[in-house]
């Protein structure tokens, strides 16, 4: 009987470049693999030793050294090494040491060569080229602070305690007491219609606090069905998220318990206190101080704390996505608190409204040097004569408050204080109709920021409604996409013909590069066009890239390259701002290439080159030349 190596195939399939290989090639690899175990500390390959196989790390971690003994890279599960040697006279170029107990799958040389020759994508990926170097650089930054790198399932200490929807409050309380838990998941009976129709078995959740506030304080009968007091439409986390992401989600939604799902089933509930216990001194507690501040003056005193939170995260080696998301949660919290204060001062709103965040905050890519870009969506019953005075005052309160807290006024007047951006939902839909159905590059130049929008306060479902409306309309509108593409190509990366840096021509920053204008902004613009084209409703550029990769519209591997390029450029920008802060200077987006290390300079060129190539592809795909 032919031996099937399902376990090995399943493992390989999860990692590039094996995910590029067809099933029969994977089966062939798996059937010929050799396995070796290396205790932590073992030298796996020595310089100039013969190498007869390509090594893939099944579990554990290794360090890759340069010949001079410098650490070159660190690899873990799914990482591979030995290809340098195999491609060059079968001599080891980079010595390897196991830093953890490591199990390696060895792909014998003849099989490696066969793959290399038969599968072009595989060869492209493995080949030693610029983007590999970049990927490794990005990967290496991902150690440090455990909160930033640990997965959430690590904090789960027990299976979730559940009770079925048919139970009473008393039964739920008894179960919580006997199990000694502070939260209880309410699940649909297994196999019931509700269970079969839902994405996951959870109908809701109750906590100790719910029993206190929703049952005892209200004097409800203990036989009340538990479904009447539970929180339904739960926010949940996924088992493979980072602890940090789960924490952000809890802070953002102001919840203390987060059920964690794996493949659609709850595997546990984590409490905010679990995380606090895990990481007592955390940067993000500034968020709770924002919500406790009782005046604009008090809020404005938190500016320094926000800045030190930013610096701390950079020093802890957080990645750009975490920093961007953390800063966005902070910015969002400022807006929410200001709106609460405004409503307290002005009284309840005459008609419902939704306060929108636009641009980098909506994309969760906010840094510390940032404008306030916001707008108001009002209920369709809005009557300007009767209601607008209230909303103008509300908008001014928030806008002035934000300015006091370090978020400068938007120079383009994209703020809720501008009448045009303080309109009923129906008017907003008309705006988008106009931008999408009758686009001109000029009209979109001022409105593209509205294609990154997120609801912050009030009827936030309207923001989602607008997002879905945009996604649906934009998707197949090639003229609109061509106009967006044309604008996305206006800002180019700062590379000259010979791949040298091109500096900004004017001002006292004459020897510098604007990392936002020349790097992150054109990248976000480019990704937005593709995202609109594939109907993505994600806001974050990394999430959009993931949607784009899944839609498979980019040449193979280019989406991953863009992700790495974005991460690298963002981190250079972020680290530069943190350095400015540490030096007591006002941070900006300009960097001077001569202040970079050789290593950073080289990688930055690689990253800009990826952006440049991606712009060429955008031009080819959406034909912006026809957008007139």
């Amino acid at each position, binding site marked *: 009987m032919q031996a099937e190596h399902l376990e090995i195939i399943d493992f390989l399939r999860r990692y590039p470049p094996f995910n590029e290989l067809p099933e029969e090639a994977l089966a062939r690899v798996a059937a010929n693999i050799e396995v070796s175990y290396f205790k932590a500390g073992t030298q796996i390959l020595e310089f100039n030793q013969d190498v007869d196989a390509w090594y893939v790390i099944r579990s554990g971690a290794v360090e890759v050294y340069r010949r001079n003994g410098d650490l070159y890279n660190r690899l873990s599960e799914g990482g591979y090494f030995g290809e340098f040697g195999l491609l060059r006279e079968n001599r080891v170029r980079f010595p390897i040491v196991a830093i*953890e107990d490591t199990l390696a799958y060895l792909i014998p040389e003849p099989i490696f060569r066969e793959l290399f020759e038969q599968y072009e994508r595989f060869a492209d990926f493995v080949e030693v080229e610029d983007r590999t170097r970049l990927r490794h650089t990005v990967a290496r930054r991902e150690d440090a602070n455990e909160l930033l790198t640990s997965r959430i399932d690590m904090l789960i200490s027990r299976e979730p305690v559940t009770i079925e929807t048919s139970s009473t409050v008393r039964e739920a309380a008894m179960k919580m007491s006997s199990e000694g838990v502070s939260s209880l998941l309410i699940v649909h009976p297994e196999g019931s219609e509700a269970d079969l129709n839902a994405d996951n078995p959870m109908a809701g959740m109750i906590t100790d606090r719910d029993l206190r506030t929703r049952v005892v304080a209200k004097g409800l009968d203990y036989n009340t069905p538990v479904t009447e007091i539970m929180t339904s439409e739960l926010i949940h986390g996924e088992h493979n998220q980072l602890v940090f992401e789960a924490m952000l989600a809890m802070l953002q939604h102001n919840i203390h318990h987060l059920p964690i799902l794996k493949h659609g089933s709850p595997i546990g509930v984590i409490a905010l206190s679990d995380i606090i216990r895990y990481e007592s001194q955390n940067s993000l507690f500034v968020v709770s101080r924002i919500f406790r501040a009782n005046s604009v003056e008090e809020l404005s005193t938190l500016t320094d704390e926000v800045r030190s939170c930013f610096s701390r995260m950079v020093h802890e080696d957080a990645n750009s996505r975490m920093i961007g998301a953390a800063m966005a949660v902070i910015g969002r919290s400022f807006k929410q608190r200001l709106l609460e204060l405004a409503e307290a001062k002005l009284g309840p709103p005459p008609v419902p409204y939704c306060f929108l965040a636009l641009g980098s905050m909506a994309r969760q890519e906010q840094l510390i040097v940032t404008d306030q870009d916001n707008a108001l969506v009002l209920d369709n019953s809005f009557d300007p004569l009767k209601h607008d005075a209230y909303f103008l005052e509300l908008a001014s309160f928030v806008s002035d408050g934000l300015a006091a807290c370090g978020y400068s006024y938007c120079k383009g007047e994209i703020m809720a204080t501008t009448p045009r951006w303080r309109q009923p939902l129906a008017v907003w839909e008309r705006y988008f109709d106009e931008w999408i159905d009758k686009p001109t590059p000029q009209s979109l130049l001022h409105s593209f920021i509205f294609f990154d929008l997120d609801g912050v306060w009030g009827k936030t479902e309207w923001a989602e409604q607008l997002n879905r409306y945009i996604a649906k309309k934009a998707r197949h509108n090639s003229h609109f996409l061509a106009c967006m593409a044309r604008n996305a190509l206006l800002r180019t990366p700062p590379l000259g013909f010979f791949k040298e840096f091109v500096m900004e021509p004017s001002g006292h920053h004459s020897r510098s590069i604007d990392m936002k204008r020349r790097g992150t902004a054109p990248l976000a613009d480019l990704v937005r066009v593709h995202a609109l084209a594939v109907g993505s409703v994600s806001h974050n550029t990394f999430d959009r890239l993931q949607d784009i990769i899944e839609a498979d519209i980019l040449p193979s591997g280019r989406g991953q390259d863009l992700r790495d390029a974005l991460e690298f450029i963002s981190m250079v920008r972020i680290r530069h701002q943190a350095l400015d802060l540490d030096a007591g200077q006002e941070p900006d987006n300009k960097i001077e290439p001569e202040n970079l290390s050789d290593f950073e300079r080289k990688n930055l060129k690689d990253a800009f080159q990826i952006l440049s190539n991606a712009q060429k592809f955008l031009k080819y795909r959406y034909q912006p030349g026809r957008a007139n």
Partner: protein
Amino acid sequence: MFYIGKKNPVKTQEEQLPGLHTAPDWPARLASLAAQTRNPILKAFYEAGTVAADTPISKVPLLAMDFETTGIDSTRDEIVSIGLVAMSLERIRMGESHHWILKPRADLRDESVVIHGITHSEVESAPDLKSIRQQLLELMAGRVIVVHHRGIERQFLDAAFKRRTGEGIAFPCIDTMELEARLHRRKRPSLLERLMGHKRVSIRLPESRERYHLPHYPAHNALTDALACAELLQAQIAHRFSPQTPIAKLWS
């Protein structure tokens, strides 16, 4: 490897006396078995012999082996699948691996189907052990067999041979479970330890692997389990022995 619950399926004499490692003289034993047997296939197997007792483990040709069975009683139950992987201390070679589903002469009991996932219809069309016996012995010849809990592989193969040819089989093996037992079953836990709730360290395959930071594999596929056991031996030698350890200290 076949398990039911937490209890150890078959208590062998050696297991009841952990730490007392008395290795048989395998080269002599195989030579005498070769002289005794009348069965030509077994004769060829025994005549292939094995390495000398002082051979360092790094030089010993090895074969990791695992069975799935219809139950835990070797007098009554039968083998339903065999996984084999050739290896040396340095490398486990999937290119030399084999996996057979066999038609047992005992009934395939439903509870065992739950465990190894091999169904009645699969075994219905499978060959009897007799038809692969020669190939199996050729693969085993000259090699030291690596198993996790030799009570299963050794006794089941012996019983299966007896049933088919009237003559059993003996072979040298390294039992990775026994190597774990040497470390973790050296003495009975003291009364104090028991009162304090010290749990006995599990020496089952998955838990043993975890201690050496080996990845989690799904259990109960004979080939995957053979690989799992092969990796465990590499890890045990790397952590607790050395490549120079003579085979006599490891086999039984």
